[in-house]
């Protein structure tokens, strides 16, 4: 029997009050995610239970009980408070998936500051725009990533502290501080900041079609949705050994890599190394992983690695498998059921929604390729693209929209209320995704409603890549679109015109790729660059990305009446 039981019954009868009651939260009272994920679990008598099994390179392993993560997050919180970090200050976590990242989230939340996790592969430009926009006061990082912050430090007057968690004793520079969790005196008790439901908790950055990345502000009240969805969508149970492969630099990694499992007192494992099928299967076998939350890109990579490698490992511990980041193709669902004995269930949410909104559930009929059904307590529809009214007929494609009001809904875009306002039409939150709903109420994903590129489950803004491209000395103009990819669903492709004096070559192609990789991130690096003499533009001079994209996807080009020189 799954945690959710009968979906239809749950959907009809559920209200968020149930989640509040289960968490002993009283409206108007204090709610602090950091406390809920550590101290409360200890208060419930599970302090000696394993909270985190971490494995790094070369088989390095660390294990933490709930008492350990309570003390460690206290220690980090007390250290930050000692530096003068105040409630609502932004503290960035810029690290690989090391224990300090996970424990740091809780420590920051405990003192009422805002955790701002950023993907450690970000280049200095990506890092700068996000730290600048958030006016971040402190960055917690590792020695290996510190140089990227140092490069932009002079442009960030609000950034007072660069905290290095694995300092090697070399002289520190101005604004740099060393902090060692292992060498610090553990702090048994800390005054938890009395955050309320609407107190800010996390700031996750996401890409937009135009303009700079947007800082999605979440609040402590989101806990209710993350708690409930970890139970009912991921089917997390007390005796599970859980593995969320997402990096906390992205929303899945915090909502379900920190908050979800730990507010439920579940044991979770983290593997801090790159991908290989052997390494992943070995990890599952070694730790007897029972509940696995991963991503289509990883699943397709495992499919590519083949079935022989699976036979080398005992994966019989696997019980519940879920996927997130981009639509999970039906082949992957069918394949996973055949080779693991359990299908991967697709789940759908966004940085802005903070928790799973539409999903498949354990125990509910799986339709491979479908997104599943709305989570209890949420109202999801598809809207007509012109009237923004719900489409009553099944099978008709429209815009996925959600009725605002679930606990983990973003509260705003940081310093960008105007863009936030544009996310709503007719009282609905517009996801920017398109889908249809079948007769049984299952959602079927169709695609994005904008130019955003979803590569390996991560959103990349074509605007951001185009802006970076024209900073390369050889590039005159650029247009960036998605192109299909068998593993990552989409990858970045750039069309580039060159300045006079430059000629296309394989070396220039590679140079531009590396330029973007270092400036923005590996995700944003064009996997293909096409040098062209001219880009398609409207008569007013706007580059028509959709024409280039249609060609890449083999689709109809559509209306070209505004095309220059048509």
């Amino acid at each position, binding site marked *: 029997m799954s945690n959710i039981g009968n979906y239809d019954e749950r959907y009809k009868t559920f209200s968020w009050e149930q989640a509040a009651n289960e968490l002993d939260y009283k409206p108007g009272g204090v709610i602090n995610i950091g406390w809920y994920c550590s101290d409360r679990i200890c208060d419930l008598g599970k302090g000696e239970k394993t909270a985190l099994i971490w494995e790094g*390179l070369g088989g390095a392993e660390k294990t933490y009980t709930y008492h350990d993560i309570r003390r460690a997050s206290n220690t980090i919180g007390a250290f930050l408070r000692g530096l003068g970090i105040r409630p609502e200050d932004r503290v960035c976590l810029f690290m*690989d998936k090391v224990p300090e990242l996970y424990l740091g989230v809780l420590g920051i939340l405990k003192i009422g500051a805002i955790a701002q996790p950023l993907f450690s*592969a970000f280049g200095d430009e990506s890092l700068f725009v996000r730290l600048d926009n958030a006016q971040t006061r402190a960055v917690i990082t590792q*020695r*290996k*990533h*510190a*140089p*990227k912050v140092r490069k932009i430090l002079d442009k960030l007057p609000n950034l007072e502290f660069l905290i290095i968690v694995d300092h090697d004793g070399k002289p520190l520079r101005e604004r740099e501080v060393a902090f060692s969790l292992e060498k610090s005196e553990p702090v048994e008790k800390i005054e938890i900041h009395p955050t309320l439901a609407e107190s800010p908790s996390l700031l996750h950055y996401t890409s937009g079609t135009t303009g700079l990345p947007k800082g999605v502000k979440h609040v402590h009240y989101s806990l209710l949705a993350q708690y409930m969805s970890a139970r009912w969508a991921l089917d997390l149970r007390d005796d599970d050994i859980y593995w969320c492969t997402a990096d906390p630099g992205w929303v899945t990694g915090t909502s379900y890599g920190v908050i979800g499992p730990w507010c439920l007192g579940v044991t979770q494992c983290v593997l*801090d*190394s*790159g*991908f*290989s099928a*052997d*390494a992943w299967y070995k990890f599952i076998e070694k730790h007897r992983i029972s509940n696995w939350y991963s991503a289509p890109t990883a699943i397709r*990579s495992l499919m*590519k*690695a083949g079935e022989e490698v699976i036979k080398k490992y005992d994966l019989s511990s696997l019980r519940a498998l879920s996927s997130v980041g981009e639509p999970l193709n039906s082949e992957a669902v069918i394949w996973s059921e055949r080779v693991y004995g359990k299908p991967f269930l697709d789940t759908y949410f966004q940085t802005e929604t903070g928790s799973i909104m539409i999903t498949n559930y354990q125990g509910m009929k799986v339709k491979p390729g479908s997104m599943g059904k709305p989570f209890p307590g949420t109202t999801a529809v598809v809207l007509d693209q012109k009237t923004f009214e719900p489409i009553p007929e099944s099978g008709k494609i429209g815009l996925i929209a959600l009725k605002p009001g679930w606990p983990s809904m973003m509260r705003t875009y940081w310093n960008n209320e105007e863009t936030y306002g544009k996310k709503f039409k007719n009282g609905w939150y517009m996801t920017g995704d398109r889908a249809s709903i079948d007769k049984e109420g299952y959602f079927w994903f169709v695609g994005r409603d904008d130019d955003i590129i979803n*590569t*390996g489950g991560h959103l990349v803004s074509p605007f951001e890549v185009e802006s970076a491209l024209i900073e390369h000395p050889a590039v005159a103009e650029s247009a960036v679109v998605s192109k299909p990819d068998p*593993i*990552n669903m989409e990858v970045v492709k750039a069309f580039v015109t060159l300045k006079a004096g430059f000629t296309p070559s*394989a*070396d220039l*192609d*590679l140079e531009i*790729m*590396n330029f973007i*990789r270092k400036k923005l991130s*590996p*995700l944003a*690096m064009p*996997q293909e660059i096409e040098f062209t003499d001219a880009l398609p533009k409207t008569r007013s001079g706007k580059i028509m990305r959709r024409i280039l994209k249609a060609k890449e996807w083999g689709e109809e080009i559509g209306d070209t009446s505004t095309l220059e020189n048509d």
Partner: protein
Amino acid sequence: MADELKDIVLKYVIAEYLEDGADPITYDTPLISGGIVDSFSMVSLKRFLENKYKISIPDDQATPEAFDSVDKIAVLVRKFTQA
């Protein structure tokens, strides 16, 4: 034993994928499974090898396993340069 191909690849990986002050790497340091080169960046490493050695590595052979160390990359490159 000195190996020019491996030295060139190692130098390139250090210059392109390692931050200043990072721990030193050798021919057998795990690159992909070690998190030094991610799956997206592998595309640029593949492009470098193809440009440098005038070869074409099919996608089905450009696997994380085949790119997991300078030693393994050298085996892959030699397979195509000697073909």
